[in-house]
């Protein structure tokens, strides 16, 4: 359906093409753009937070608005910026790294994206329709269950829908990695980014259902009068805390593992060395994922679980430092004896090591259960998690984007501008967050709209705000770089970095079928092996033949649109039952699309051998 239409040029056709695409590379672009925009929005919210806190007793924004701001900042950054950016990378890279023509479920892949976007848009609509959620990104009950207005309803519905999208995406990548590897690509030859994506997808699969249930309970309490968190009727607010963190802790590893994987590939490429201790790295990744499920209650040390539970969770949390340490040292020794090329991608990666180490170490300090009675819910925690999230995940995105940009778009991001963006961001980051460790210990709780004079907090907060402005400058330079590169930079070859893994063996950007012939993988770093043998590309594992491709489809968009509409119905039916009409319309659209999908045979189409010989199936491009 899309292929025929896409041949007609023009903006309309291009939009239609993206609305119906099931090509993982285009879906990656969709994730990248929307995740990027949400990052800017989340960053803008962070700036407003920092401006409010620049001086004591300030009322730049009101107390209620401040709570909405931190809630939306946290929620947007985690669910709407970091998650989609991870999926952007996974979509852009994983199939290429394992030598696959496509993901396992192209249709579901696009459904996952549109669901995420529908959820994200719903969440952000709250700003304009009576107020955003204001109970923190952790939405602790009963505050969230009783928060007036519709803010928290938007939180519940938005996250539920985008969470469904994430779950679908996770399953898609699990199956892709298990079933779609090229001949010879055994598990222990997979690049670390693919390994990390695999473990992350597992975490998604097992962690998101807990959030789903938690959101349902909260939704039922808020919209349908149930009593899960209503102590008057026997409810128990701690249930929410557990459900949220059973999801929430694995979530932070969902964020960090893929960038760990990206760093592994980057360190190895730009040191021109094989990754040091590959199997230990794989083992550490799996172990982090595994341990990640047993530590959630470290967010609840002050809830009152008792000394036994607190001690168990403290010790299991500390254990995670071991596999993470293995990674840090393996990265260092990958560079050891290598030939380090200081590109922008490498610069961000180099900056990541000390930054993340500090963040990890404050994490271990937090894990000392009793000491957390002092740290908990103070700026010390805020400092910890921005050190790991910004210093880990965001630095990781910048590094990975610089690294894979040529693969995604055929152009190398301007190196000068890349470095120019790095320095203000890096310096600004440490200015903003280092001082926050001390603010926290000096008695500044987090989620404080304002603080009183004479508590010794004024200077620290001012410094922190100045740092945030530097970060904003860095971000803007990066955005400028993207535009500049798109307009001014020249196309590059398929392998600009002297790469080692399969994605660099094909043109940039790759043709829509990725590999004309499936490559034969002979070991870890397959392309590097071939290069060492004096070849320029991969040896194919099959003769040239027809390639089977999936059809594009508008249905994922429709299904998500249906849920988008129904979401508003759910939110407002509390006020007036008439709004239920929206629920029926929306669910009708969604279920109708699902039915259409299952009734129609959709077998895809073939790119014929002849077309490929002519220089490659010009269905698109």
């Amino acid at each position, binding site marked *: 359906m899309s292929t025929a239409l896409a041949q007609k040029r023009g903006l309309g056709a291009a939009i239609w093409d993206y609305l119906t695409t099931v090509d993982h590379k285009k879906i990656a672009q969709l994730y990248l753009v929307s995740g990027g925009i949400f990052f800017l929005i989340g960053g803008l919210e962070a700036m407003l937070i920092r401006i409010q806190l620049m001086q004591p007793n300030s009322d730049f924004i009101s107390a209620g608005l401040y709570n909405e701001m931190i809630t939306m900042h946290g929620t947007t950054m985690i669910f709407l910026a970091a998650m989609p950016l991870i999926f952007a990378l996974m979509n852009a890279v994983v199939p290429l790294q394992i030598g696959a023509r496509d993901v396992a479920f192209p249709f579901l892949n696009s459904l996952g994206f549109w669901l995420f976007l529908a959820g994200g848009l719903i969440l952000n609509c709250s700003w304009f329709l009576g107020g955003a959620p204001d109970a923190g990104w952790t939405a602790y009950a009963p505050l969230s269950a009783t928060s007036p207005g519709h803010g928290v309803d938007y939180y519940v519905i938005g996250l539920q829908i985008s969470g469904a999208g994430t779950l679908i995406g996770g399953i898609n990548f*699990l199956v892709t990695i*298990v079933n779609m590897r090229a001949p010879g690509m055994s598990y222990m030859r997979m690049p670390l980014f693919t390994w990390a994506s695999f473990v992350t997808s*597992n975490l998604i*699969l*097992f962690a998101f259902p*807990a959030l789903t249930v938690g959101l349902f309970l909260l939704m039922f309490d808020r919209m349908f009068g149930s009593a899960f968190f209503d102590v008057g009727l026997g409810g*128990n607010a*701690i*249930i929410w805390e*557990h459900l949220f963190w*059973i999801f929430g802790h694995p979530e932070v590893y969902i964020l960090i593992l893929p960038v760990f994987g990206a760093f592994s590939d980057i360190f190895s490429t730009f040191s021109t060395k094989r990754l040091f201790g590959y199997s230990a790295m794989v083992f550490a990744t799996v172990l982090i994922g595994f341990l990640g*499920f*047993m530590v959630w*209650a470290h967010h609840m040390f002050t809830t*009152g*679980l*008792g000394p036994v*539970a607190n001690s168990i969770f403290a010790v299991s949390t500390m254990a995670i430092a071991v596999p993470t340490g293995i990674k840090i040292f393996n990265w260092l020794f990958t560079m050891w004896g290598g030939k380090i090329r200081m590109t922008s991608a490498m610069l961000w990666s180099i900056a990541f090591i000390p930054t993340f180490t500090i963040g990890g170490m404050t994490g271990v300090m937090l894990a000392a259960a009793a000491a957390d009675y002092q740290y908990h819910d103070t700026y010390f925690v805020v400092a910890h998690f921005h050190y790991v999230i910004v210093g880990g995940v965001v630095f990781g995105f910048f590094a990975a984007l610089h690294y894979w940009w040529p693969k995604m778009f055929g152009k190398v991001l301007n190196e000068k501008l890349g470095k120019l963006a790095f320095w203000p961001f890096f310096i600004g980051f440490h200015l903003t967050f280092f001082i926050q460790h001390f603010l926290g210990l000096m008695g500044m709780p987090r989620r404080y709209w304002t603080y009183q004079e004479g508590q010794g907090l004024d200077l620290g907060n001012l410094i922190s705000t100045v740092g945030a402005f530097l970060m904003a400058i860095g971000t803007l330079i990066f955005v400028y770089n993207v535009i500049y590169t798109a307009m001014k930079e020249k196309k590059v070859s398929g392998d600009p970095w002297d790469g080692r893994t399969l994605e660099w063996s094909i043109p940039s950007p790759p043709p829509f079928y990725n590999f004309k012939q499936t490559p034969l993988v002979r070991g870890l770093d397959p392309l590097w092996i071939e290069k060492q043998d004096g070849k320029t590309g991969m040896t194919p594992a099959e003769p040239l033949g027809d390639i089977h491709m999936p059809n594009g489809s508008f249905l994922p968009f429709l299904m998500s649109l249906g849920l988008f509409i129904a979401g508003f119905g759910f939110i407002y039916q509390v006020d007036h039952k008439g709004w239920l009409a929206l629920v029926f319309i929306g669910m009708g659209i969604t279920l109708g699309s699902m039915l259409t999908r299952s009734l129609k045979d959709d077998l895809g189409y073939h790119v014929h051998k002849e077309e490929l010989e002519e220089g490659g199936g010009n269905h698109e491009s």
Partner: protein
Amino acid sequence: MANNTNSANKPVDFKKKHSKEEMKQQVITFALMIMFTLVAFGLVLAEVTSFFVIPILIILAIVQVLFQLYYFMHMKNKGHSMVSVMMFGGISIGILTIITFTTIIWW
């Protein structure tokens, strides 16, 4: 559309036999499951002390579920290793969740 129902399938005799064998196992499984269910309900109706019954009930349930998974859902067959990893992953996290909710929700 042709009707495939009875197309000639000569070479699959062996496989057919294999399916038959499997089917027999499944019927036995079913019988056992019914039996376990009867026992479980019986125990409760007989009002045996709860201290005693609850562990038995849980064990009976677990065995039944393993039957379902391994025989009805074929997890015992080849090509299910990844499946097992995932299911047991899910099960262990599920167990951890349930233990939590029965111990450290109230204190």
